[in-house]
């Protein structure tokens, strides 16, 4: 089964490591990713807050292109890794489905560009695909370096499972936990895994935004996490890049690696540092996994 891949702006810029690691892991799993040609902005936050209709039209152009590229005779699965894109496209998908008045206006706009959208498309998050489309045994079979002894805090952020996703529970999602258990890691109980990271406020109103990220990092550290796994480029950026600033602002040392879940999965599958974009981390991953036969990995202390 082939999947189309919609990168969105982040995965080509701040979230390059996400794209690199996801492509590497999906290739390893045997899922070829074909990038959507001529994709455009998903229509997320800024558009959505100013003009919903224009945001829907932008999303719909991507849908129409995806259907065309995926083949009109079957349902196309469009993989959307960025949480904001995933939310924006899922919202448009639902609204075009349920509100005929919006649909007719969007159809008109598409027709002007010579395009057509016929509801034969599914918006999928890579987490959803890895958990629900890949057999557990297949995933387990790819593990060459189990993440033994690694304590992971799984962070979903606010957008992936709320409010449109149906592949996991909104309050207590478990997809990442399932994957990392298969990969041999230990999961820490961290009840705030769907709380806001601060979003764009970390840049615009840092006293609010930074504090939200800080609370997440502090609690993960207190609960003994070795690293945090994320599935969103903005969450990853917020949680990782401001750590020195938070440490001085709140007078509490914050120093914990924040990886994309695909990077962590790639480590267990024995993929290389460059393949996974690990060299791009600001807070380096201080864990070397052990080969499958031995008892556990090693934590490198600074």
């Amino acid at each position, binding site marked *: 089964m082939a999947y189309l891949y919609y990168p969105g702006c982040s995965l080509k810029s701040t979230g390059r490591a996400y794209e690199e690691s996801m492509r590497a892991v999906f290739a390893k799993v045997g899922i070829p990713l074909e990038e959507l040609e001529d994709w455009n902005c998903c229509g997320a936050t800024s558009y959505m807050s100013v003009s919903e209709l224009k945001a829907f039209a932008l999303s719909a152009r991507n849908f129409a292109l995806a259907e065309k590229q995926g083949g009109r005779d079957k349902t196309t699965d469009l993989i959307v890794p960025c949480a904001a894109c995933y939310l924006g496209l899922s919202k448009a998908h639902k609204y075009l489905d349920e509100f005929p008045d919006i649909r007719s206006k969007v159809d008109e706009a598409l027709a002007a560009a010579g395009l057509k959208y016929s509801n034969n498309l599914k918006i999928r998050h890579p987490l959803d695909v890895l958990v629900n489309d890949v057999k557990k045994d297949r995933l387990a079979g790819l593990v060459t370096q189990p993440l033994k002894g690694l304590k992971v805090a799984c962070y979903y952020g606010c957008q992936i499972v709320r409010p449109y996703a149906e592949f996991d529970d909104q*309050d207590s999602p478990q997809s990442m936990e399932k994957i990392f258990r298969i990969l041999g890691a230990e999961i820490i109980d961290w*009840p705030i895994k769907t709380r806001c990271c601060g979003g764009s406020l970390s840049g615009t109103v840092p006293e609010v935004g930074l504090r939200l990220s800080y609370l997440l990092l502090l609690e993960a550290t207190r609960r003994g996490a070795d690293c945090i796994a994320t599935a969103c480029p903005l969450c990853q950026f917020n949680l990782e890049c401001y750590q020195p600033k938070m440490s001085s602002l709140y007078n509490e040392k914050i120093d914990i690696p924040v990886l994309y879940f695909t990077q962590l999965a790639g480590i267990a599958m024995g993929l290389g540092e460059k393949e996974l974009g690990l060299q791009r981390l600001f807070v380096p991953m201080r864990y070397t996994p052990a080969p499958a036969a031995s008892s556990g990995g090693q934590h490198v202390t600074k």
Partner: protein
Amino acid sequence: MSPSNGQTNGTPKVGVYVCHCGINIAGKVHVDAVVEFASKLPYVTVAKEYKFMCSDPGQDIIAQDIRDGKVNRVVVASCSPLMHEATFRKATAAGGGNAFMFQMANIREHVSWVTHDKGLATDKAKALVAAAVERVTLHKPLEKTKVPVHADVLIVGGGIAGIHAALTLADSGKKVYLVEKEPTIGGHMAQFDKTFPTLDCSACILTPKMSSVRAHPNITLWTYSEVSEVSGFVGNFKVKVKRKPRYIIEDLCVGCYECIEGCIYKEAKVKDEFNVGLSKRRPIYIPFPQATPLVAVIDPETCIEFRTHRCKKSCATACERNAVDFNQTEEIKEIEVGAIILATGFKVFDAARIPRYGYGKYPDVYSALEIERLVNAAGPTGGEVKMANGEKPKAVGIIHCVGSRDAKTNKYCSRVCCMYSLKLAHLIHERTDAEVYNFYIDMRTPGKGYEEFYDRLLEENVHFIRGRVAEVNDWAITPEEKGKLIIRCEDTLIGMVRRIPVDMVVLSTGLEAQADADDVRRMFNISCSHEGWFLERHPKLAPVSTFTDGVFLAGACQGPKDIPDSVAQAGAAAAEAMALIDKGFVELEPNTAYVQEEFCSGCRTCIALCPYSAIGYNEESKKASVNGALCKGCGTCVAACPSAALQQNLFTDEQIFREIKGVVSYV
């Protein structure tokens, strides 16, 4: 009685009566235009409108027109036949006509209530009137048949509603079969500690009634049993009841507990259903000390003998009366009853379905039913409210509306949770002296003495925070929160988000329809509401009847209800059953099938299909024939007959085609 031989009432003279139903119909339908239209239809001799056709003066118009010889067939265009068909048939008969020379056009439920545009509504009303007029010209006089009623009653479910209905009927001299699927009667009420708002001990008021059931000469009590098949009709139901093997001979067991103490399991290891899993029982057990009947039961899922066949069966040896019988098998009882009362109760909402409240994750998050057992003196802790670590809680949060008033789970209010939350707040406060916080959306205390009980709790210094709880977790931000469960909620009275650290959380779980409600509904041929509750015939005027005559409802199977309401409804259901039985007979609709012999080829297709074995075969004439006394008018044979030899009174092919013609010709 073949209608072809019946009188035809001469040339059709149809009277059409269009009802305004106040503004219910007249607000959306141009009644005068419908009357004008009807007056020009073939055979129509009278067309009139009236504000309320169902009123006495309205009915008199019909009767008088018949008496005056103006009319011999009647069409009333008004509401649903479910509402007033009987009324207008009676009016037709009152004028001297045959009650079945009548047809109803439903222009309220099917037109005015569901159509916005007055023009379109009027058009549709005209089409339906035309159809009724076409049809009624082919109606023939029919007679109802009377069938005697069986005097016994079946009650399904042995909670407080079933118990009360059974005792009421039995005291009036009726024979009652009470069927309960659990090993004991008592239902949820047996698990409660106190009852609101009077705080009487639940067991103290319930168990005497349970004993009365056991002792009553008119009640046959079958516990650990389920109804497996229902056939027949009002007054004459045939029911099969499956009695599951309890592996104890009920007549021999005296409930002495010797077998239980003799069990090979020295320690109880199985989750105790009665204490909602807070204590353990052995595979052979008596649910609780006042269980009725006080007879042990063996759970084959956990009993070593059933799992390995290698137990030394020390329970059997311990029993001096030889009541243990590992070879017992399922038994099917067949009974005949005139009426059935369903009192199958409710299911408690599973709090684990809302993961953000931490049920199943944090050991000190409890469901309300678990707390009922914890505060009960006969419960697993002897009535002490203790946390998982054995200590008394210093602060307890009670979260209302868990699985109620929530678009994601159940939209409805479960009606009992505010009051039982107050009761539990009182009991917890009394036992532990803890600070108790109630988190509520609205306090709903509409009952006798309920609001006064709420006032009493306010004076007992229990805290009330208005706002829906967002989450419960152990994420401590301040040092005071460390080691506590944090309840985060919006306090809508002060407009702030608050974090309340507590030691114990009680989730006031809502009520849901039983998991097997849909199967039960099918078996008894009744309806369920959208949420799965059994549907009453009319929400105001027939609250314990169903759309199947002779089947009545009592208690929470019809919707969330507290004990007083369940008991009241059980009494009402018992009275309805008595009214049916004491009348002695039921009148059956004459909608029976009949064979037009000249068309019958004798293929016998119909005979095998008839669910009531009402069709016989005449070897001499080689034709099928219907026994009108057995036919229930289901129409299966009529639809199946390849030569259309089978017809059904009130639904002949001709009548149906003419009705269709009436609609279509108007359009």
